[in-house]
């Protein structure tokens, strides 16, 4: 009796945004911790089945490219690399386009790409994502924090942009400001969802207040349903 294993090895690339805006988090962890956990879980899962994983790190710019390789050591090295990275005090505003463009030129084989970022970026990254999505299987992982959704009501505060260092006086108790902020957040959610849809890229939101594994499992289950639905739709057509 012969057992056949599907032996098609996948190359997965993590496009990681580790700019200062990711060094923020108010619930259970920083967004960066969430990012590292995500990479650890996924890389371990993938390498266990003999797949190869690599990574690209974006801090002030594309700072490090770790070529794809298999094995447990590769995973450990990757995590170690991420853990060791010092927290950046200042950086120019993140340019996701730069990160995505690097991936377009360097990742030649069809791969599984995880774009892990909070998507706080200078505009103009959407075409690059679309381009990547045509060639590779892309998954956009959006890191969020509840404080980015809703500001605590604590009166006048000075807020400091993690990347540009800009200071802003904000009256968090101002009712008009609060409604406007909620509106802006809603618009941004909608704009991001629309951008992912246009690029035909699957998106997953990871929040610092949620449990990582549970979120991934829920996503995988949903993906199964969506795929089945898509298949069914294809059959009807």
């Amino acid at each position, binding site marked *: 009796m012969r057992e056949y294993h599907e032996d098609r090895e996948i190359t997965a690339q993590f496009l990681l945004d580790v700019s200062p*805006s*990711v060094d*923020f988090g108010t619930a259970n962890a920083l*967004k960066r911790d969430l990012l590292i956990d995500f990479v650890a879980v996924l890389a371990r899962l993938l390498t266990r089945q003999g797949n190869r994983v690599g990574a690209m790190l974006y801090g002030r710019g594309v700072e490090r490219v770790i070529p794809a390789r298999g094995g447990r050591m590769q995973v450990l090295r990757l995590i170690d690399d991420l853990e060791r990275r010092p927290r950046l005090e200042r950086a120019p505003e993140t340019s996701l386009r730069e990160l995505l463009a690097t991936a377009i030129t360097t990742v030649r084989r069809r791969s599984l790409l995880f774009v892990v970022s*909070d998507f*706080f970026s200078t505009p103009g990254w959407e075409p690059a994502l679309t381009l990547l999505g045509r060639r590779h299987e892309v998954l956009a992982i959006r890191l969020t*924090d509840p*404080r*980015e959704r809703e*500001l605590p009501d604590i*009166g*006048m*505060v*000075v*807020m*400091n*942009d*993690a*990347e*540009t260092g*800009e*200071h*802003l*006086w*904000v*009256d968090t*108790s101002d009712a008009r*400001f609060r409604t*406007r*902020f909620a*509106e*802006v*957040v809603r618009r*941004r959610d909608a704009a991001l969802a629309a951008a992912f849809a246009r690029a035909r890229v699957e998106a997953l939101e990871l929040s610092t207040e949620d449990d990582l594994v549970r979120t991934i499992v829920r996503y995988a289950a949903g993906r199964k349903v969506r795929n089945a639905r898509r298949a069914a739709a294809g059959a009807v057509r």
Partner: protein
Amino acid sequence: MTFLWPGNLFLVLLVPLLVAAYVWAQRRRHRYALRYASLSLVREALGRGPGWRRHVPPALLLAALFFMLVATARPQTVVTVPVQEGTVILAIDVSGSMQAEDLRPSRMEAAKAAAKAFVEKQGPGVRIGIVAFTGDAQIVQTPTFDKDLVAAGIDRLRPQRATAIGRGILASLDAIFEGSEEVPPSVAALARLAGEPVPGATPQPLPQGVRDTSASIVLLSDGQNNQFPAPQQILDEAVNRGIRIYTVGVGSAEGTVLRIQGRTVRTRLDEATLKQIAEITDGQYFNASNAEDLRAVYENLTTQLVFRNEKTEVTALFTALAAILSVVAAALSLLWFQRIP
């Protein structure tokens, strides 16, 4: 502006210190700013922020503090204080030379007209008395609120012979202190000049800078004193009682030869003495060489007597200003930022 306790002005140096502290606190606040992933959304929602407005309440508060600190130095300033009530004695020279017709219709008549106009202008709270002096002085009208009586008193004035400015002043003082318990100033002064013991208690000289402004004498003369006592000898009586004497000289110091009822008379205005009287008693001297002048002098006097410039402590004003500023600062802060600075 002067200060009673100028030493306290050094406290004002605290204000720049506080400004520095404020700037430092602002910097510090920036250091303890809330780090936030990306301000792009916040900026979008903010519209125009509090901006310069957040500095307004602290600035107002600092200004308030400045005024409070200045107030501790007890600032004084010269303020025009209306004197609503008091006594004015019009001491009028009725010597023969007043019949001279160099002023139309005559010095006497011009003086009377000007005095009457002056009486008309005084407020209801001013008592006016008339004293006429020639060889002697007499109280023509005791100080009264009744202007008709005063006008009638002025009408009664008739030119006489000699000129006794000193006695005129004493009679005026008597008129002012009439009805008081005190020994009449003229009795006291004459006794003193004669070397006799002064009956009753002499009034203590008033402390420097303090003046009773409630009474003044307006003395009109056109000649030289030629009777006992000399005005300089009895001025203490007025000074000690805090009474100002405003003097009005008619004619000129060079002297003029006048024709009075057919006779030629030479008169000289003793301007120096009149000036001295005014100076010593803190009054003022005016010269009138024609009827318009005379009228103008009395009109001028009206404002002089009714309003006086006085050195007043204005600490209260400063404190009030500081209080208002603090209240406004607090109100704005509450209105804009829901908190008191």
